[in-house]
């Protein structure tokens, strides 16, 4: 079977149920065994404005929105007008003919009007089920199984709203489906069922699930887009999984509570976005100083300041690298896909526990609010849990216990409060081996040097455990695309497209950002040819960080900072311009404006 690769987009106003259509559509595809990546472009409004959801459907795993829109569903006139030009030639635009006086014009696509008033027999004046009717029509055009849709509607509405609502929804879904069968031309390539049926997850839930698997017993948060999904998942599952979940008065309280819980023995985690992370900064340094393991997720959105609450960016790298005053051991990791967000949480907890330091996970809106499909059996619910050198509950050591004992590795056995025989004080002031912080002790320059070096020695141990960046594609390629975090899939696809177009391209991608092993990274970078750093921010935060850590200066830059994620062709076009020597700094043009 040839690769199936198809994009369905839904546009409408918030309140028209775009997200529920998106979820239902994604789940229908997943039940067909098809892979999906869903991205929702939206605005910071509860009602009004415009939302545009893109679901890329493929017979193979997919993790970016792609370049084209094959089938667009316009739930309102605004969407129809806005997205008419975006439909790929040969594609179809479904719209509600009740909305328009004059039919739209384009002769290279199929215009597919339906009158919702007629199809619903004028029974739904508030147009609550318009989305369901249009999705029914769309499903017919791609060869989706109507029965699967009906099952989804039953699951969604039966418990909450009862059989009558289920029947009404199924009624309009069928009406849309039948209308399409009679009036529109279906696509040549159709859904083909694959095994196994897939499950659907969003990036925030994936990280929350990773936390549950890693043994998170304490989760705190203050609501902040686009990180709030982690809180919602934790709150929903807290009782089943026995996780303490707290909503706090601010992010300062969040991270300090997490520090308290971690010190008392829990694996403790929190998530926020850039502004909340800024409030957490001081406490992250205190976790470094007191040597308490915590995991903090920062889901980046467009900055600076309140910035773009509903748009994506990779603009917090320097914030996270520079968070808090002074030097202290820390780990920074940027997951490269939604399900990598699941796997990375147990990995990073093991590092935090082993090295008794804060660990920070840098996600972004694209990853956290995107949906993806996964094989139900592919989830590792029992990852390795390594809590490092921990004394919990039972007296172990003989003689005087020194919380900050100077060791070769820099790691000192950590006694949990409540353990007999290990009473000690941890302090945010610097301190000596037993935690004493009286200032004529810690201002002793020799003691200060010893304890500083002890802490920082832990970085050597961390470095040894972090894998170098990956190199994908031919080693002798003409062009090397360099990226980090959430852009793994879109850069990979761009590299493939360039290679297919005759420009041999490979791809170096960074997941573990800090600490960075200069030699190991340079060994990989040495294999690059014409190198281009691709990232979603204005100042090239990663390119500058990479240069600072390794001395490596890329030949060109592709940067996007308009709030929307990269599409593959943005990178392909950029690479071509850079190769042609027209510029060394390319900013793609965002065609789809929401």
């Amino acid at each position: 079977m040839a690769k199936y690769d198809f994009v369905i987009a839904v546009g409408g106003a918030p309140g028209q149920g775009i997200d529920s259509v998106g979820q239902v559509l994604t789940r229908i595809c997943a039940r067909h065994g098809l892979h999906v990546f869903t991205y929702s472009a939206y605005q910071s409004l509860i009602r009004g404005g415009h939302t545009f959801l893109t679901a890329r459907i493929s017979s193979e795993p997919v993790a970016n929105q792609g370049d084209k829109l094959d089938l667009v569903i316009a739930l309102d006139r605004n969407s129809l007008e806005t997205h008419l030009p975006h439909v790929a030639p040969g594609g179809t635009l479904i719209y509600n003919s009740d909305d328009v006086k004059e039919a739209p014009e384009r002769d290279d696509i199929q215009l597919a009007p339906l009158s919702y008033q007629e199809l619903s027999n004028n029974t739904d004046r508030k147009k609550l089920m318009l989305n369901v009717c249009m999705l029914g029509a769309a499903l017919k055009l791609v060869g989706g199984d109507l029965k699967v849709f009906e099952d989804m509607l039953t699951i969604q509405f039966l418990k909450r709203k009862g059989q009558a609502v289920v029947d009404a929804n199924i009624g309009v879904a069928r009406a849309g489906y039948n209308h399409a069968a009679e009036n529109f031309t279906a696509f040549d390539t159709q859904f083909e069922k694959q095994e196994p049926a897939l499950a659907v997850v969003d990036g925030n839930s994936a990280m929350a699930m990773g936390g549950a698997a890693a043994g998170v017993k304490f989760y705190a948060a203050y609501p902040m887009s686009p990180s709030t999904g982690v809180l919602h998942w934790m709150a929903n599952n807290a009782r089943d999984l026995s996780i303490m979940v707290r909503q706090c008065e601010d992010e300062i309280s969040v991270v300090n509570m997490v520090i308290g819980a971690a010190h008392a023995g829990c694996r403790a985690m929190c998530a926020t976005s850039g502004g909340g992370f800024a409030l957490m900064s001081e406490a992250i340094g205190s976790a470094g100083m007191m040597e308490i393991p915590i995991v903090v997720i920062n889901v980046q959105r467009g900055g600076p300041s309140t910035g773009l609450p509903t748009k994506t960016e990779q603009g917090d790298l320097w914030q996270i690298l520079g968070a808090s005053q002074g030097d202290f051991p820390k780990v920074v990791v940027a997951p490269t896909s939604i399900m990598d967000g699941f796997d990375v949480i147990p990995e990073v907890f093991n590092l935090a526990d082993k090295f008794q330091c804060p660990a920070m996970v840098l996600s972004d809106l694209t990853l956290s609010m995107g949906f993806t499909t996964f094989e139900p059996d592919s989830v590792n619910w029992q990852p390795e849990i390594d809590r490092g050198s921990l004394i919990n509950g039972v007296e172990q050591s003989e003689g005087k216990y020194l919380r900050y004992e100077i060791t070769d590795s820099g790691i000192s056995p950590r006694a949990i409060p409540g353990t007999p025989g290990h009473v000690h004080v941890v302090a945010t002031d610097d301190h000596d081996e037993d935690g004493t912080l009286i200032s004529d002790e810690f201002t002793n320059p020799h003691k200060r040097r010893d304890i500083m070096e002890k802490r920082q020695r832990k970085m050597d141990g961390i470095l040894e455990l972090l894998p170098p960046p990956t190199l994908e594609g031919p080693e002798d390629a003409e062009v090397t695309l360099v990226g980090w975090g959430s852009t793994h899939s879109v850069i990979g696809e761009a590299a493939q497209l360039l290679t297919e177009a005759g420009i041999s391209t490979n791809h170096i991608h960074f997941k573990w950002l800090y600490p960075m092993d200069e030699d190991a990274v340079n060994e990989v970078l040495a294999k690059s040819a014409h190198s281009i750093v691709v990232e979603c921010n204005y100042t090239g935060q990663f390119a500058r960080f990479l240069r600072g850590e390794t001395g490596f200066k890329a030949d060109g830059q592709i940067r996007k900072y308009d709030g929307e994620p990269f599409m593959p062709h943005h990178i392909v076009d950029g690479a071509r311009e850079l190769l042609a020597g027209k510029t060394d700094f390319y900013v793609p043009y965002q065609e789809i404006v929401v």
Partner: protein
Amino acid sequence: MAKRERSTRRERPVKGAPTAKDFQGDVRPDWCPGCGDYGVLSSLQSAYAKLGKGNHEHLTVSGIGCSSNLPGYIETYGMHTLHGRSLAVATGAKLANHEMNVVVTGGDGDGYGIGGNHFVHTMRKNIDLLYIVMNNQIYGLTIGQASPTSMLGMATKSTPFGNIEAPLNPIAMAIVTGATYVARGFSGNPRQLTELMYNGMQHRGFALIDVFSPCITFNKDNTSAFFKQRVLELEGHDPSDKAAALEQAVKWGDEIPIGLFYQDTSRPALDEMEPVLENGPMARQSLGITQEQGDAIVQRMM
């Protein structure tokens, strides 16, 4: 600066009932001679002893400031956290292990100023903590600026021409915000202070003890003598009567009441309402989830 006394003794095995001496730390306080905080420290050591638990069963948490150095001088588990953040850290620790006795100590700047947001919300949530504020109405460690409890007109380094901002009333604030044990003590009355601390530890829910702990160096107005002339132990007052408690709380003048203003034993502490603690303290629960739990989660995502 105080000399540090190195000793090999750690946590003497408690034979019979512990004494206040068992809670003396290895380090001598570096407070100024005559500081009110000495009286608070010794009262807390006595209250810990009276409670009868081992040293390792207590956690003493503080922020930053002169008084926040206290955990270093006491023989329990301790956390000397950031300026203003002690209540948030202590909340996390308490909810992670609610079998621990968690006591928070600090000053008025730390608790009512920079930590004001946490102060309000920790009371509202009725977290089972004892919070002892050594209120000297001045910033001492930064050598003498106005604090949120400095009196009107007081000249300090930051208000050389007299303070024009009104002080907050922590007692009244605590009563209306949701604290369920609200008391005021005086470092010059260690007998009563120990009693208030002991009862505060026994109380299930958020307990505030605002303690007049005069700064001998930077506050020349609210001195030990000032309070000795004015403090008066509450008598014939019913602490379960909220309105009466508020009436006492706003008294300030030639007579200033000290003692237990308010106690509500009907409202459960947060940990008593949290179902996930039915399986024991979070810190002792087994980590991770079972394959069955994981499968059930995935099933809901199909």
